[in-house]
């Protein structure tokens, strides 16, 4: 398909690989923020195409993985209520809460439905006026405009049976958290192209200036990733701290202003807990007061249960790039995609699931074959 096939061209990937080898001299660590990109790197075995002195660290950019357990528990609790239909993106159904996941709630009789688009959840509300519809709105900046638009649509249609359980997270505050707190030294960042498509590059300019780190906005196909690594390595080798845009066919410097306006109309920033990482200041979005009638947290009564994360799961360290999945004692044993102990084993963008799928017998430091 156009705009996909050419970015999977093996010859072109080979050319960029040679170029990276020819300019790379330093021992460095770079992080790809987004789980979708981690997935591509493992699927296409891109680590074999870059020199062994470049360490790729997988970042926290998987919204499914970082949604706090508390929200999963609340979604499950809501789904068990008689008059509620709990609507969610498919990825969330297997994420373990304290006791169970949404899929097992459904097996126990809860009305849990999967949708492709947030607008489908609004349609379910229109079609089921006697029911209360709760849409589990998770995601990063990429998904926020769609979820905000769904709330506006519910308002336009005058629905009073539509609510969202909002667990939106923002990427730049998490990057800042890693850059300021992490005991891992990062020499460069590969930013998530679709987050930048919506938000633009300004926030990354600020981060780059403050922490003296080069950042490249990167696309999702294997050639995008190799090309972005080349641009980043060049910046690092030349001691430059610029922000560059590899994904210029989709990312504009200013982002999508209309999408940003919709997000700001409906949501406002708040502190948010990232599963396994902790609370990060201003890293989440909640509904503005004007839209509080759509906020499931304010309009339903919850039991005050204590949430608990599985003790053996080291997802927090993995999401911060401190460890690789294969360093978890449960990886591939008690924890597999069919029985995940932690969120990174659930989503195809989770580092544990990507390692399990594409690199079962792990060799963390695949040496360059070239």
């Amino acid at each position: 398909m156009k705009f996909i096939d050419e970015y999977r061209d093996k010859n072109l990937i080979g050319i960029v690989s040679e170029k990276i080898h020819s300019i790379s001299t330093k021992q460095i660590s770079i992080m790809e923020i987004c789980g979708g990109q981690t997935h591509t790197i493992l699927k296409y075995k891109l680590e074999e195409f870059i020199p062994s002195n470049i360490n790729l660290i997988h970042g926290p950019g998987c919204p499914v993985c970082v949604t706090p357990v508390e929200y999963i528990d609340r979604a499950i609790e809501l789904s068990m209520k008689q008059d509620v239909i709990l609507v969610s993106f498919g990825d969330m159904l297997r994420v373990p809460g304290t006791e169970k996941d949404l899929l097992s709630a459904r097996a126990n009789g809860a009305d849990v439905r999967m949708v492709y688009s947030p607008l489908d959840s609004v349609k379910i509300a229109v079609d089921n006026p006697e029911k209360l519809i709760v849409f589990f709105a998770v995601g990063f900046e990429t998904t926020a405009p769609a979820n905000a638009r769904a709330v506006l649509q519910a308002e336009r249609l005058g629905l009073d049976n539509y609510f969202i359980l909002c667990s939106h997270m923002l990427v730049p505050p998490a990057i800042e958290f890693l850059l300021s707190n992490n005991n891992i030294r990062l020499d460069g960042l590969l930013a998530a192209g679709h987050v930048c498509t919506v938000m633009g590059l300004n926030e990354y300019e600020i981060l780059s200036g403050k922490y003296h780190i080069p950042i490249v906005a990167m696309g999702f196909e294997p050639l995008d990733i190799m090309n972005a690594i080349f641009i980043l390595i060049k910046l690092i080798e030349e001691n430059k701290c610029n922000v560059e845009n590899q994904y210029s066919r989709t990312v504009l410097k200013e982002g999508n202003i209309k999408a940003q306006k919709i997000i700001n109309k409906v949501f406002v920033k708040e502190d948010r807990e990232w599963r396994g990482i902790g609370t990060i200041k201003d890293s989440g979005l909640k509904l503005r007061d004007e839209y509080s009638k759509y906020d499931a947290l304010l309009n339903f009564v919850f039991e005050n249960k204590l949430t608990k994360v599985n003790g053996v799961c080291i997802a927090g360290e993995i999401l911060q790039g401190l460890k690789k999945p294969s360093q978890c004692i449960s990886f591939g044993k008690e924890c597999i995609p069919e029985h995940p102990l932690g969120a990174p084993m659930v989503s195809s963008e989770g580092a544990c699931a990507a390692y399990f799928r594409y690199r079962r017998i792990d060799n963390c430091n695949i040496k360059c074959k070239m």
Partner: protein
Amino acid sequence: MCLAIPGKIVTIDDSNEDLKMGKVDFSGIVKDVCLDLVPEANIGDYVIVHVGFALNVLDEEEAIKNITLINEMLNSE
């Protein structure tokens, strides 16, 4: 979750003032997509679609430039 893929707009439905929708072709699979965030989009444009919403119109010139630059790396040996 953050998966977004390019598809080509085949029809635009402006009839609903509230919500601009269209049909987008992803290599033969045609889906309904909300075009509200890309008011400038026309039939024939490629858009990047995520959870049923077009996030941006793909800049074909930039795509060609990108691939050309990579091809030129080969000749710059």
